[in-house]
């Protein structure tokens, strides 16, 4: 973990409610895809945890959705503004277990951390599919970005306005091939989706969880959950849990 000042390089609206921010600063503690950062906003007591979407040199990319007052306020930040950010938080995905044909399954604002995972898996020569779920066609973002890095993308929309009608689990069933069509899964999204993915997947995999956080670096026990391998802090021993250790 490191506390660093980052400078905003870009703050761009992707959809009606989703924005991308690029930040310049010391990214040295960001090791794994699936890790997160914790951002201090003036006027709010707690930091805002946001997943690492990408990191290249000293540029950190995050994607955030307007949920409450803090994220709403972030949309007004200008280029050049400085933000106090804790980096290098959480365990992140263990990409070494992916096998040849991993599938990445993301819903809504669970999609961003899978982008860095995809980039790294592809760089390691894996054949990567991404199943991305949205409510409707207007909410789609980053489909192109996943394709550009060489990822096969399957879209699901709840209202069927594009791609498979239904949830990511419906789209997952369209993947065919040897066995179930994938060797391992990495997923991130709202908890009901994670549970559905847990039940629908036929291989092992890793799930990234969200929880309201006090600190984000292991000090407060605010984010604990029970797992097969004992109590874990989502912010420290998580946010990524292995399928085998999850207790619902």
């Amino acid at each position, binding site marked *: *973990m490191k*506390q660093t000042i980052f400078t905003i390089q870009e703050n761009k609206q992707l959809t009606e409610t989703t924005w991308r921010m690029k930040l310049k600063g010391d990214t040295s503690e960001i090791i794994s895809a699936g890790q997160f950062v914790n951002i*201090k906003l003036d006027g*709010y*007591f*707690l*930091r805002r945890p946001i997943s690492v979407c990408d990191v290249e040199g000293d540029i950190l990319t995050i994607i955030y959705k307007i949920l409450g007052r803090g994220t709403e306020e972030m949309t007004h930040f200008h280029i050049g503004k400085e933000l106090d950010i*804790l980096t290098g938080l959480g365990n992140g995905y263990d990409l070494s277990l992916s096998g040849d044909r991993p599938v990445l399954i993301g819903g809504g604002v669970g999609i961003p951390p899978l982008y860095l995972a995809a980039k790294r898996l592809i760089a390691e020569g894996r054949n990567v599919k991404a199943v991305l779920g949205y409510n409707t066609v207007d909410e789609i973002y980053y489909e192109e970005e996943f394709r550009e890095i060489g990822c096969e993308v399957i879209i699901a929309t709840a209202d069927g306005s594009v791609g498979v009608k239904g949830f990511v689990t419906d789209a997952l069933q369209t993947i065919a091939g040897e066995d179930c069509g994938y060797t391992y899964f990495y997923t991130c999204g709202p908890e009901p989706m994670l549970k559905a993915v847990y039940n629908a997947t036929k291989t092992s995999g890793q799930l990234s969880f969200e*929880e*309201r*956080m*006090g*600190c984000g*670096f*292991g*000090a*407060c*026990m*605010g*984010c*604990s*959950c*029970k797992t097969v391998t004992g*109590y874990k802090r989502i912010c420290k021993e998580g946010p990524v849990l292995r399928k085998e250790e999850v207790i619902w």
Partner: protein
Amino acid sequence: MTDTKITLCGIELENPVIPASGTFGYGYEMAEYYDINCLGTFSFKGTTKEERFGNDTPRIAECPSGLLNSVGLQNPGVKVVIREELPKLALVFDKKVMANVSGFSVDEYVYVCERLDKERQVGWLEVNISCPNVHGGGMSFGTDPNQAASVVKAVKQVTTKPVIIKLTPNVTDITSIALACEEAGADGISLINTMLGMRIDLKTGKPILANTTGGLSGPAIFPVALRMVYDVAKAVSIPVIGMGGVSSAEDVIEMMMAGATAVQVGAANLVNPFICQDIVNNLPDVMAKLSIESLENIIGISQEEF
């Protein structure tokens, strides 16, 4: 030269800055981030007889200048603390630690204190009597002077180290409880624990915390904490440890002027993991600016009549 030394129940501290229980783990986790030997000491996570998971999540809700927590005393139980946590702490911390103890019955307090009292690393026992007393019908030990005194008496009988009683602010008259603890033999008073509060999620109409209510801490409670420290320090003659919203060297000094011998820092650690180190580093400058030569000399000066 400015002098930040203070003496707490017979043990000298390099400075009065003490991370508060529940916001600093068992210390070694924080030693990954900075050398925690710069601290006066710290108070470790509230420890009970048995392992506890605590309450369901969500356990955290944000508030103006503070947060609610309903962690519910998650800890591995006193045996594991002694067997695993304290040895890990010994590798990174040379000083005496403050052992924070919780319980749901007098017997449990006695059990846990007796064991921690024997540990070489432990300098003080900080007994948190803000938990609901299951025997006494759901009220907290800390809300009734007689029950508070009964905990103190029982713990003092099985311990040799200074026993500091940590009080809850959710009472009509905190001074009467502090006085009862002093009379029962307490060596110090530490206050305040969190204030009972609540938030509701407007989208669902339901409480944000799974536990419905939680404890408010952070700068929001600083003025209430300061008033209680002032009142209690005026009434008792044992040392008082002040806490509640402290987030800067200035706040430390204000607490000491009100009557605190040492000062704990809780919620602020969660937002800025380096805050206690920063406060320790800033103290001499702020003292110099205010022409304070020795922190020991300012304890309770706001109490004096001119």
